[in-house]
């Protein structure tokens, strides 16, 4: 069952996306749908860390965790709930 993505989180994703889109959803690909590249993903991670007061550990700084909006959301949720 697809998890509901918080509007606040989705807003940050869209805000930092090189190709702004109001159509972003859980299944959106950060790279293919929203135009993220390696540099803009870095900016997004730093913004997410600041927004939620978390610091991602090295093992989680892996591009496969930032494939889709949902995968990124699940990672951040894990840290928020830790």
């Amino acid at each position: 069952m697809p998890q509901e993505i918080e509007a606040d989180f989705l807003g940050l994703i869209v805000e930092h996306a090189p190709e702004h889109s109001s159509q972003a959803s859980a299944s959106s690909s950060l790279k293919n749908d929203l135009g993220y590249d390696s540099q803009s993903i870095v900016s997004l991670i730093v913004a997410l860390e600041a927004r939620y007061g978390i610091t991602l550990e090295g093992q989680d700084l892996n591009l496969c965790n930032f494939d889709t909006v949902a995968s990124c959301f699940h990672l951040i949720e894990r840290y928020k709930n830790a």
Partner: protein
Amino acid sequence: MRSAGHPETDNCWLRIDAEGGLLLLCIQSQFDADAARACAAIIAERRFDSRRLFSLAIEHRVAPHVYRTFTRLGLGRFLDSHSFRALELIDTANARRNMRVLACATEILAALKNADGKAVLVKGPALEAYVYGGLGSRIFKDIDFLTPRKDAGLIDTVLRGLGFDQGRLDEATGTVIPASREEIVHQMLNTHEAFEYVKAGETLEHALFVDVNFEALWKGAGTYASQHAIDTDVFLDNSFEFVSPAGTITVLKPEFQAIHLAAHLLSEAIFFQFSGRWARDLNDMSLLRFADIYVLTKRIGLDWRLLASLSNEHHASAAVGYAVHYVESLFPGTVPPDFREWLGPDGARWIERYVDHAGVEHRWRLPFEERIFAHLARAAEVAGNAEVAGNAEVAGSPEVAGSPAEGRTGERA
């Protein structure tokens, strides 16, 4: 070029100048009586230029080999006094620093082990302690660890607990300028290693640098990506604890040590994806990297059949074939004659070839011995090829057709 007077076992030697040849003999002299005798004869007959020998020893980072050979043979007086004194100072400082750095490496490994983390010491410090015997004869700067990415947080905690921080050493103040969060994240996401850890010391010489690698090898780009990548776990499973003069360390088994050295050498020699760094250091052809493999074969020994088998099993034949081809060329008689056959055709894949920063593959026109001992000539050939490839690209020449990501060939007959 003048001949070094070495037994003519390989044509390569006929085209190496006296100082280059003497450098090679210095490396061999501790293992090979014939090499020691040839070395002594050249030195005693003053058949070399003292300043050029010094310059090459520094360039190829083998100053301790040269200093120790002259000292061991009792022939230091045949080197000009300034060069001899400088070599002596380098050797002494290097030996002191190596012991300090190795002690730090053992401390990190012990702390990591206590935290149930896994890591193996690779490159400089592992070679110094295990391959060279911990006697201060291997020059290196960083402590290099290979660790699984899942332990990245663990090793970060351990290093910070020991006073390290991720950043750069400010040589003007001797302090560490911390890396930004963006830099740390970018490095983790896009490379095989963490941003460098640094710990300042009482003096610049006392500063310590740690590289945490999550992949054993640098990967090529596009077509060449991952073709010689080996899982970090494979290397970790083939490591063992070794008691060095500075304490217990974890290092790779000899044949895996050889594969790691060969693959690292191949990556630097063949793939120029870090073209800025390559242009600065010209380090792909440092004699030290070939000497490491030679010393490994002499001090530790290799099971060559096992090495061939492992190379084939882990798709490392191209790297191993490349490295041992040139080790044999520089140090004749090191590699068993049948080894190339055991390795199979992949072993010859990269011999006499390189890939420029744009992903274009070339065949060297300069012979190997000139590439290694005449860096400027080598750089000129690379620059010339880059210019030709660039012009052809603009003109849409089919010779370099395709994107860098697909891999291209710029080979000329």
